[in-house]
């Protein structure tokens, strides 16, 4: 199925459910402006659907060879980073995240020299953040076990 057809059908389903949800609002007058937007979105989605049906789209090779594995690893690492940010503190978790990303996503060409370099860059990067924002600007960040 064409990409635009998929996206227009998903949008139409979303628009219909959002429109129905307007009926449950505490004050119906608060729904006036969102209603206008949702109706316009519905019309635009329908036009996109018609366009995808009647206009021939150029074939796209995008999607082929997408690195799903790498993408999900990165996504998962960011989630873990969020979970531990409030426990470990911003600076420590940022340092560990930096190391994890560079070691796990760059495991294919990891050598002892590169490992030392990645740890050093992570340390310097987090150190600069700490000096600039904690020491110089005194910006509040999540405090954890250490920093």
């Amino acid at each position: 199925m064409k990409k635009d057809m998929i996206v227009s059908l998903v949008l139409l389903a979303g628009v219909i459910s959002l429109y129905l949800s307007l009926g449950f609002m505490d004050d119906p007058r608060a729904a006036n402006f969102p209603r206008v937007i949702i109706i316009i979105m519905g019309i635009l989605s329908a036009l996109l659907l018609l366009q995808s049906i009647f206009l021939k789209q150029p074939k796209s090779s995008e999607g082929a060879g997408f690195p799903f594995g790498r993408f999900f690893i990165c996504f998962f690492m960011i989630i873990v980073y969020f979970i531990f940010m409030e426990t470990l503190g911003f600076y420590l978790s940022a340092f560990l995240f930096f190391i994890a990303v560079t070691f796990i996503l760059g495991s294919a060409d990891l050598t002892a020299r590169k490992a030392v370099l990645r740890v050093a860059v992570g340390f310097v990067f987090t150190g600069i953040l700490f000096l600039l924002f904690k020491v110089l600007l005194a910006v509040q960040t999540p405090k954890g076990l250490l920093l």
Partner: protein
Amino acid sequence: MAEFLHYFPQALTFTNLLTLILGVIGGLVLGATPGLSPTMAVALLVPFTFHMDPATGLILLGAVYTATVAGGAISAILINIPGAPANIATLLDGHPMAQQGKSQTALYVCFISSLVGGLIGMVIMILFTPPLAKIALKFGPSEMFWIAIFGISVMAGLSSGSILKGLLGGMFGLLISTIGYSPLLGAPRFVYHDVLTGGVAIVPALIGLFAIPQVFALVESLGNKLERPDFKPEKGILFKTIAENLKMVKSLSIGSIVGSIIGIIPGAGGQVAGLIAYDQAKKFSKKPESFGTGNPEGVAAAESANNAMVGPSLIPLLTLSIPGSPTAAVLLGGLLIHGLFPGPDLFISHAEVTYTFIASLVLAQIAMCVFGIILSRYSYMVMSVPNLFMIAAVTVLAVYGTYSVQNSFDDVIVMFSLGTLMYIGRKFGFSPAPVVLGIILGPIAEDNYLKGKLIADTDVGVFSYFFTGSMNIIIILLCVASIGYSVYGEIRAYRKAKEAAV
């Protein structure tokens, strides 16, 4: 002009000057880094300015905005990848020059031409912005409502390959802006989770929509080998290049004029300015066949045009809240978080901040040229920064920037959710710029729609209030023309593609 000269010394204080220089150097490096867009760079910086004095914060954003446009030329010249869309025309002659061993000459021409174009653009901005702001003083709720819609329609047409997707993005942004409590009635809307109680703030949206898709795009491109930078140091060429560059009067004039005119047109952007200026410089050249083979006049025309656009692109932004480019849309977010609302008030109530900001943009052009020339010798090093470091650094900065504004972890969740959704959206041809503009202009559109409706109900009726009156009709026609032009462009592109396929 008198106000500009009056507030000019404010931009020269130690803090402001230091901020400006750091912003310019940072902007040049970020602009030169392949894989990092200037828009994302400015978006990431917005929250950090929150902790600064408004004038200093805006100076930082303005300096980065100015320098990233010129910095994008470095990667265009050295590795044939434009750092920003505005630098597409630069690579046509810039990269061939680098291949001929004249990379440093090309970089010098780029920065000197950027300075010439940038200064001319700034003069246009200083002359035209205050009078236009006075016109905006006459706008009531209906005109302001249509101005918001016009801003979205312009951005929708430009930043996405499809006007339908651009408009859908803009409407999605408007819808996001309604999350939270209704401004007039106080009733909750679309609050499906506690995280959404306060609505979606500008900073998490800006960072999420621009930075997170970039992080995932960098993850995708891991393992792709970039071209090695063509860089050979040349000795004793600075003054010779300056003299030769300033003799390129025709190319510099064409570039500066085209860039300034295109800049004023909301949404047209540096990419269009650079390409049109390059094309015109080629047509008016005595040796048009030399364009594309490493002619410095081509670099001069393209770079003077895309930097001449910087100042004038802020005219519709500062007067009517209509950004001239996606980066200017992010800059609008920066203005709003400091409580500065575009329009005549900016030049009356906040004259000191506004004129200091404008003065700093002039200084940023000069600093960009000076530091660009100094750094050009080392610029090839920037190309060697591994994507792995970028992925980690951008993510950490995105999280930090989002959290630090309101000390809210909920904002981080909103930022990441929006960013992931935008990454998927980009795969389906959607662009973040209309969504961001929808979020920024949403409250302006709703507020004026509701105010206008209240007036209309007690007066002439909704239709007459919103659809009659010369200014309303002019803005509505501009909306129709903006969308119509995009539709026409798409039909033409579709026919061309069809003919090419036959």
